[in-house]
């Protein structure tokens, strides 16, 4: 019998929520099959079968919070051979009866086992009467035992119902990830002296450059050239000039980072995640493009690794993909700066005394005013604007 345990989840992550069992008790699995998915606040972890076998027991339910190394269930590796040998489903009672005893119903035809949840006898009865599963009820008895009062309270929980009988509100538990996102954002708001400054970028030249190079780059390198990597490069250069925006506060010290791990905010189904591009300051536009595409795909698939998610020094978030014109991003604490990009929109602007229609984008820098002075923040954003409006300048700095 092998214990199926919660694997190490990465730096500083000690617990996860069981999001889904892909295999059931009694099911045969091949080595490497994903048995169960765990969700942490950052990533989804798949727990594979260490060997071939049969799931002998499942000791945690979906929605349970589990800790690293906790046993999730057991795998009977000795059952694998039997399963492989028997083409047809084996009868539950495998031991041959020594005497012609009357047919005994096999164990599997017994009534459904009570779910593997600690519960009192009256609780199980009340749950059966109410047509609910004790597994859905949070136990408040010692050791989390589900008691009858728990079941009754669960069954009678307030549900507001509209006149036609449809629910007007539903209540659902926040996932671990959502809770952590909420905590992190709130901590950022509480722990920093948060301020936002704005500027705007004339995207004419960058767009022209992209248009000119797009096809060639896609053909030769398999990379779709967006304007994001240009912003990454421009931001890296501006950070080099204003290193405090790339710093971090630790107690009464300021830690200056002589590298940029550029966080890219990505909306995924389970919430916002911010993977980062390591050493973005030392990478070219093509490498940055490629890496952004890769982490964005991983984020959407829920496959980001801890390494992807930790160590960021500065963040870029692009609200423009959803059409936002102006926003004030929240710092990705403990970082002290975040650059907000928005939708590029054709707008009339005054150029050399004449009104012209230009593709314009508002950009925002939220910064932690505790160590970043207003002047530095404004000049940082001006620097980003200058580089973006004249991308050739990136070559020269």
């Amino acid at each position: 019998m092998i214990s199926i345990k919660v694997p190490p989840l990465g730096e500083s992550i000690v617990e996860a929520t069981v999001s889904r069992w892909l295999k059931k008790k009694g099911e045969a699995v091949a080595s490497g099959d994903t048995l169960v998915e765990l969700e942490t606040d950052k990533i989804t972890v798949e727990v594979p079968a260490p060997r071939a076998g049969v799931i002998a027991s499942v000791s945690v339910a979906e929605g349970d919070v589990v800790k690293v190394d906790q046993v999730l269930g057991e795998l009977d590796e000795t059952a694998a051979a039997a399963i492989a040998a028997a083409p047809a489903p084996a009868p539950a009672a495998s031991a041959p009866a020594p005497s012609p005893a009357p047919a005994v119903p096999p164990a599997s035809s017994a009534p459904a086992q009570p779910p593997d949840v600690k519960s009192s006898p009256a609780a199980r009865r009340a749950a059966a009467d109410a047509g609910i599963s004790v597994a859905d009820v949070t136990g408040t008895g010692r050791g989390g035992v589900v008691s009858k009062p728990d079941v009754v309270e669960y069954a009678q929980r307030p549900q507001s119902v509209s006149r036609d009988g449809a629910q007007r509100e539903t209540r659902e538990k926040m996932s671990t990830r959502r809770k952590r996102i909420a905590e992190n954002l709130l901590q950022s708001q509480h722990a920093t002296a948060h301020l936002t400054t704005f500027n705007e970028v004339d995207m004419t030249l960058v767009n022209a450059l992209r248009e000119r190079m797009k096809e060639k780059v896609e053909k030769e390198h398999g990379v779709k050239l967006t304007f994001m990597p240009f912003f990454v490069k421009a931001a890296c250069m501006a950070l080099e000039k204003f290193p405090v925006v790339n710093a971090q506060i630790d107690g009464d010290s300021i830690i200056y980072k002589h590298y940029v791990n550029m966080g890219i905010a990505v909306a995924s189904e389970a919430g916002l995640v911010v993977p980062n591009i390591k050493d973005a300051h030392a990478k070219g536009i093509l490498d940055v493009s490629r890496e952004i595409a890769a982490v964005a795909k991983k984020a959407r698939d829920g496959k980001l690794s801890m390494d992807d998610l930790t160590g960021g020094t500065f963040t870029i978030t692009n609200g423009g993909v959803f059409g936002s014109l102006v926003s004030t991003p929240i710092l990705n604490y403990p970082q002290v700066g975040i650059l907000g990009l928005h939708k590029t929109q054709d707008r009339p602007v005054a150029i050399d005394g004449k009104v012209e229609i230009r593709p314009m984008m508002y950009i925002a820098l939220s910064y932690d005013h505790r160590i970043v002075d207003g002047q530095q923040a404004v000049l940082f954003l001006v620097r980003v604007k200058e580089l973006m409006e004249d991308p050739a300048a990136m070559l020269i700095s």
Partner: protein
Amino acid sequence: MKNADVVIIGGGPGGYVAAIRAAQLGLNTVCVEMDKTLGGTCVNVGCIPSKALLTSSEHYEWARLHAAEHGVKIDGVSADLPTMMKRKDAVVGQNTKGIEYLFKKNKIEWAKGRGTLKPGNVVDVEGVDSYQAKNVIIATGSVPIELPFLKFDEDRVLSNIGALKIPEIPKHLIVVGGGVIGLELGSVWRRLGAKVTVVELFPTILPGNDEEVIKEADRIFRKQGLEIRTGTKVVGASRGDGIIKLEIEKDGAKETLDADYVLVSIGRKPALTGIDTGALGLALGQRGEIVVDAEMRTNLPGVFAIGDAVGGKLLAHKAEEEGVVAAEVIAGQHAHMDYKSMPSVVYTWPEIATVGLAEHEVKSSGRAYKVGKFPFSANGRARTMAETSGFVKFIADAKTDELVGCHIIGANASDLIQEVVLAFEYRGSSEDIGITVHSHPTLSESVKEAALGVLGRSLHI
């Protein structure tokens, strides 16, 4: 100066159990006890000796009054007080020796002397040594409260200590205070032949308990021959040779009672021997009890307190549990006290056992509730034993059926309550007990029947 992980001041049920638990958890443990024996009030002058005398006196009363109805004829029954006392002392001795053995087994050092807690968690033990403790557990217990005009001499004016070793059977024992100690020890001497008068200031005996239980207890005790005067205040006393004149007052009317012995059992207060709370800055509550949190921590770093010294219900099993919690917290485990499922027992006969709230407490909380009751007179086993007085009473939430209170007055109530305590721990419902199989014939069937009574479906009534 020696070093220790834990120094426990007091070797009563709280202290010695804390010591055993701490030692089990690998902590270098010292227990300070100044008495000649371990075990504190409970083992030496409380629970254990009183139960020994209660049992002996019950046997005597049974032989005298009840044996005949079972067809057992005993002629010339008499109480041999010296033998009863010797047996009681032997039982106490077995228990204190037992604790000494447990100390040796668990490698706990018994520092035999008066301990004094000094700032910086240093404990000086008179005539022994000083200990620099990483953690201190104060388990100094409690002492009986005196009447200012009738101080204890343990000769004629007795606390629990003297009442356990009266050298003769009193002619008239007056018990001041109709609580647990007064009723238990009053019962002992009544059975042995003394006239016993219980004087209680409150309108009832056992104040605070469930009213139906009090009513039943009052009725049974009076029938047994206990004289009970409630709502009565002791206002003065004068002493003659072998006689005490007690002035009592009820509704303004004064009266004088003569007694050869008086037991004063009007309550106990925290004993803080060797704990200079002022100098240490130890926070105390309104009744002089040490203030602690659910992990038994005082306001001083590394100083814990448990048992009677922290107030609450003065119960040995409460002290023990608090001792276990303190030791486990010190060892870095997650433990905390929860008093919701704390049972308490009065060892009169019949016994009275309680867990949870009394009906009047539930009523005043505004919670809708249901009651289930079952009398022992309807229980087959009780009839075979001729122990048919009393009943089991359950109080449960009307909506969720959650158990809120259970009160048992009857034979062996102290053991019968225990399944209910377990149910309380798991937030059980009356249905849990009602649908659980109980052996037949047992007294415990009454517990099941009373639980079913909450659901309106008792079977045998």
